[in-house]
């Protein structure tokens, strides 16, 4: 906790220097809060865990938003501004890991595991269908109707039984 406090403090001081030229109030430069938030919501503050920048309540994040405002008023694009933050604070400010290097694993491992799951399941299905395969195919063509063709029959069977009891 103490470490975190020092980190936050350090961060505030650095940020203060970074935005020194701008005053804290915005709006006079023709950049709206919405334009700032449109970029801020895709960025994550590196000191407060898992909080998007547009709703983060710390002073540090406020300074960051002012920095975005400044850069927007200077005519920088969204991509340039995001790149600035990545360059200065690392890839963790992005809401998704960049698609390169080690980070590629985050995108490829789940589909790979799921694919293995699908293959295993379908091979198992094939195996389980086993010997009765032919008989089943016959019935699906309609020559022999399966005994209980739909879920409704489950209910009807139960219903019949109940009626019998009632008698």
């Amino acid at each position, binding site marked *: 906790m103490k470490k975190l406090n020092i980190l936050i403090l350090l961060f505030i001081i650095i940020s203060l220097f970074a935005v020194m030229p701008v005053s804290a109030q915005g709006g006079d430069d023709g950049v709206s809060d*919405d334009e700032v938030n449109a970029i801020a919501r895709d960025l994550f503050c590196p000191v407060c865990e*898992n909080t998007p920048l547009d709703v983060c309540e710390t002073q540090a994040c406020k300074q960051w938003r002012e920095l975005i405002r400044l850069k927007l008023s200077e005519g920088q694009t969204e991509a340039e501004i995001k790149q600035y933050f990545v360059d200065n604070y690392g890839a963790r400010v992005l809401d998704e890991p960049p698609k390169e290097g080690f980070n590629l694993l*985050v995108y490829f*491992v789940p589909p790979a595991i799921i694919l293995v*799951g699908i293959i295993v399941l379908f091979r198992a299905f094939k195996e*389980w269908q086993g010997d009765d395969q032919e008989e089943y195919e016959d019935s699906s063509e309609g020559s022999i109707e*399966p005994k*209980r063709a*739909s879920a409704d029959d489950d*209910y009807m069977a139960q219903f019949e039984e109940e009626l019998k009891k009632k008698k």
Partner: protein
Amino acid sequence: MLPSLGYGILVITFLVTLYSVAIAIYGQAEKDGAMIESARRAMLITLPLITIASAILIYLLINDRYEVEYVWSVTNRTMPIYLKITAWWGGQPGSLLFWSWLLSAFTSAVTLRKWDRDRELLPWVLVVTGTTLAFFIALNVFYENPFKLIPAGVPIPLDGRGLNPLLRHPGMIIHPPAQYLGFVSVTIPYAFAIAALITGRTDDRWTRITRKWTLWAWLFLTLGLVLGMRWAYDVLGWGGYWGWDPVEIAALLPWLTLTAFLHSVMIQEKRNMLKQWNMILIILSFALVIFGTFLTRSGVLSSVHAFAESEIGPLFFLFIGFTFIVSFSLLIKRWPDLKSKIEMKSMLSREALFLLNNLLFLSILVISFWGVIFPLLSELFTGSKVTVGPPFYERATGPVWGALILLMGIAPLAAWGRSTVKTIGRAIWKPALAALLFPIFALTTGITNWIALIGFTLIGLVITVTVREFWIGANARSKNKRLNENLFTALLHLIKRNRRKYGGYIVHISMVLIGIGILGIELFQTDTQQHLGIGEEINLAGYTLRYDRLDQFRHEDGRLITRGEMALSKDGKYIETLAPRFDLYPDGQPMTIPAVRSTLVDDVYVILVNWEGITRESTPFKVYHNPLVKWVWIGSYLFVIGILIGVWKDEESKEV
């Protein structure tokens, strides 16, 4: 005196639990009934012991005994009594004690009720729950002592730090107990599963005994999730209820495996297949429960370094590893006994579709689990941390959720054993046609987003198919002269006769109602933030909000309240006044409380953006327009009703 007594009782409880576990194992090995009876009684004593320890803690909390560190850290003098009581689970040591108390209560309930009927399984159930209990109490005894005194020589503080204001909300008061109840109750079916593995009773005895337990666990896990969402929506002030935060995902993970289990266990009951798979699912559920507690309690989320520094983090890690290795060793040992001849004639049979359902739920599990641990792996292997945020989860799980909804629309029409395209097609075409009314209606309201249109079609299908199931059953009953029921009583009797099935269908409908809300807020949420002076207006999504006044005053508990008033109107017609608030607590903790106007169609959600600095001349407001979000809560209520129908005692069993 009292704190020492409390701690002493915890130490005794720990020893008694260890004794109970050891003597139960020994008694089983020696086939000595007296020893097992002694183990059972020892376990029953843990409940009054932990209850007394908890009562002492609550007494200390209520009476502002700040010489106790925990009391000082979670309460202060201005807190009302009910909040002081809930501070029991407001911090780490207390919440671990709360967990132990719940587990002890559940274990006692099991050992009291079913002992005679299942003498074979129960001693082992006791061993499993006892080991888990011993682990949690050990955390309290050795690392996180709730009765720890402030260091000697330091004067007793005059006032406490107080509970985090974010936690002083009704949602946060019931959310943690519900979440913990869900987590803890998963232990019971897991314990029975392990007992079945140890004794070799590989028939479906354990699933039958634990059916209700599993449903209760599912109910509480769901409640925990929903209450947490509601709390986030009402208190956190970021316009949503779910941010794919690791803590949220930690609660979702066991819910996913348990939902899969609830479906696949039916295959075991109906067709006597897939016993091995059900074992895997329940073992996973338990491991994920401990993992969830570990994630939220160990500090691992903030960084792997914090984890290494935390004392209990590595212990959780060891405990998960231990239960995992023991569970899977047992499973492998019993693997051949659990084998049964599997026949799956058709890929469209009910059991095949249930397996597909399992595949989909586990896919979401894989994605979420990987997303949560990836930042840790990245930090560990590359030294730099990354963020895996909402876009990742939404993109990856969105289609899977869609497939699950499609499955909910088809599976009720598939029969056990065999179904074909033909039989399902014959049953589905009418509901499918009716389901098209949903996207058509959406089109008439101007929605052209194709994801939304597909989503509404699938949701429509689930609703029409499920309603048809109710209709067919009720109609058949009411048409029958001998039963003499009108359509309404027929429907009630239908549900009564098969609570599990129809309770399940109600849960299906509730899920898609929640789906409507999620589609609404995910695809159509809009927002704007503006600095306003008095009299100025914000326009969003056809609504107008006029800023009328700003007040600032001090509440009796010391917090400074800043309250804005906005008149909400649409098409020039006044609707109501919304008053978003910003509370600043004496300890400097801020709290942003939104004002929400909620209807079935949309929510208008306003906050005072206190972090931008509030002045009378220029007050920053943020307004969110959240379409359809109320359906999330409506669906949640219905969900609870559905499960309650499922767990309610059957009339037949009462008669017996």
